[in-house]
């Protein structure tokens, strides 16, 4: 019999049932070898690699294996049983790695890792948790965005919401938290792995049918921002689902949302806010890169008319090599004596458009000093409320 490579044993092949192995190996090891004196807190996972070099152990292993699998509590359930959460080293490591509060029990953390596609029972999957977490995340993000940048146009708010708590970001965070995916869900899986029913390759995602939409026959009618706010999700997308299974992105996003709500439920609001600030708001995003203007000069003229500023005029501030192959123009846009924006380009029209873009970004990216969020008032002994800046809204042409 060819000896199996230990690496494979301990990695992917056995990963779904690594805890089973560890459990029985632990027994076996203490009984036979009396060598492991590692502390109970460590819970080392002994791989089954040693099983084959002693016949006595092999026999014992087989009996234990048979007994384990005949035990109804392992394979009967679609997701790991609750008591398994305390025996998983992966789960404890994840709990410690995220510095989760001690009030958040392992069982809840294990539940956040079970997707609805793995276990349909709402008492054991993370669907309800993720709904709450989703609301919390979008609430805190939108509150932060609207208070810090009160003049952002709605489409840019959608884009920045997507950047902060969109499914792609949440997937990246799951990866950065060191959460691994189980290859397929089941009761014998280590509770520290993310469990979901994988999407079959080549499956097409369908748009979710949730209630009637007006003017469904004219699909382009729903493309207005107002319709997006009303009918679509917080990023302005229509929700998409498949008949069976979910994509890894969806499952990861659900998991992160569920963790957020688990902290909220077990450790309270301040802890949840802190978690949000440290894990979500500390990520890097350059807001100025989210804008895409189609006709910046026209928008700027409209803006100045709306705000009763003088009509914007483009003036050349500096230039070089007008008759050469690579000229450079620096154009400023002035309203009266005040400079609104400045742009640089290889042609006068390019420099002018860039200057208009800079001026519009200067308007939209206004951020007041000492911003206080409305949710800060939820805490006790909060300072008296100072109203935040509320803007008229974006320029409508």
């Amino acid at each position, binding site marked *: 019999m060819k000896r199996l490579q230990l690496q494979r044993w301990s990695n992917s092949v056995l990963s779904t049932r690594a805890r089973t192995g560890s459990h029985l190996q632990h027994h076996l090891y203490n009984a036979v070898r009396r060598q492991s004196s590692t502390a109970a807190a460590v819970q080392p996972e002994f791989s089954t690699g040693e099983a084959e070099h002693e016949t006595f152990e092999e026999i014992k292993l087989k009996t234990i294996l048979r007994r384990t699998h005949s035990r109804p509590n392992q394979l009967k359930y679609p997701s790991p049983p609750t008591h398994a959460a305390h025996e998983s080293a992966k789960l404890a490591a994840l709990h*410690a790695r995220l*510095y*989760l*509060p*001690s*009030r958040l029990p392992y069982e809840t953390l294990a539940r956040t890792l079970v997707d609805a596609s793995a276990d349909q029972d709402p008492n054991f999957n993370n669907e309800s948790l993720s709904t709450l977490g989703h609301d919390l995340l979008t609430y805190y993000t939108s509150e932060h965005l609207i208070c810090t940048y009160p003049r952002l146009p709605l489409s840019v708010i959608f884009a920045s919401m997507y950047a902060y708590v969109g499914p792609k970001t949440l997937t990246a965070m799951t990866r950065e938290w060191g959460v691994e995916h189980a290859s397929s869900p089941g009761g014998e899986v280590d509770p520290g792995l993310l469990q979901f029913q994988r999407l079959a390759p080549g499956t097409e995602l369908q748009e979710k049918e949730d209630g009637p939409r007006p003017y469904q026959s004219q699909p382009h009618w729903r493309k207005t921002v107002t319709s997006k706010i009303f009918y679509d999700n917080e990023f302005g997308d229509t929700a998409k689902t498949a008949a069976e299974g979910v994509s890894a992105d969806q499952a990861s996003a659900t998991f992160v949302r569920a963790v957020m709500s688990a*902290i909220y439920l077990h*450790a309270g609001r*301040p*802890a*949840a806010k*802190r*978690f949000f600030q*440290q894990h979500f708001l*500390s990520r*890097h995003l350059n807001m100025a890169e989210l804008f895409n203007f189609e006709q910046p000069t026209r928008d700027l003229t409209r803006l100045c008319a709306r705000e009763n500023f003088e009509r914007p005029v483009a003036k050349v501030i500096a230039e070089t090599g007008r008759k050469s192959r690579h000229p450079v123009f620096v154009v400023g846009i002035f309203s009266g004596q005040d400079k609104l924006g400045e742009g640089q380009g290889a042609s006068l029209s390019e420099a002018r458009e860039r200057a208009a873009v800079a001026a519009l970004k200067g308007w939209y990216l206004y951020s007041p*000093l000492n911003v206080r969020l409305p949710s800060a008032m939820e805490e006790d002994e909060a300072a008296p409320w100072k109203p935040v800046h509320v803007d008229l809204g974006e320029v409508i042409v």
Partner: protein
Amino acid sequence: MFSRSVLRRFASDLRMSAPSTISGAAPHPQRACLHQTASLKASQEQASSQLSSSKPESPLSATPRAQTSQPTTNQRTPPNNFIPQNRSHTPDEKRPVAPEFKEPLKVTRSLMERLPHLVGQAPHYVVAKLHDKPYLLTPGDHVRLPFLMPKVQSGDILRFNRASALGSRDFTLKGNPHIDERLFECRVRVTGTDAEPLRIKEKTKRRQRHVQQIRSKERYTVMRVMEVRVKTPEELLQEGAVIVEEGEDSPAIEAKA
């Protein structure tokens, strides 16, 4: 060296006798200047004389328990064969102490007048000095020091207290040669150690076939800048700063050269 040992003894005496008096009740103005590092808990964690490390007001985790990577005090007695790796293993009397300020922070009137301009103009950068080498830092930066910093481990928060300049786009707070550490806060978190690829230098000598190979693989400390903040005038006054008039030799405003 003498003064440090005296200070250390003083601090350890304080620790023995009344650990709660300083951080707790009735801070007199000099003490109040010590910002958050004033509490003794923080002073125990100081990394070196140049860096004082402290915890921010709100710890990283939801509960303090989860954040501290150190065991509690009763676990601190190391066994014989255990190498001390972090500060929690070093005995109290061997740890560096927090800076003791003899007098309150003195700021000139012109600095007080211009400070709101600097504070109101985010973002800020700081030219922090470490072993007299400048590092231009902004929040979120990844720093790989050109050396391995001793007695730190990943997750530790250090406070850089020596800077030659701190500025925003249009304003620069300059010190001569360093800014007073009570004017700003710059915190970094140690994220681990990094190593360069193994270098092999071949040494040859004349008339000798033997080629000596010198191997070197330096290790470096990697950090992430958590915050760069300049304090507002209100905070400074609250911490006991004293406004002084400019000296006769200093011009009021130094225009751009």
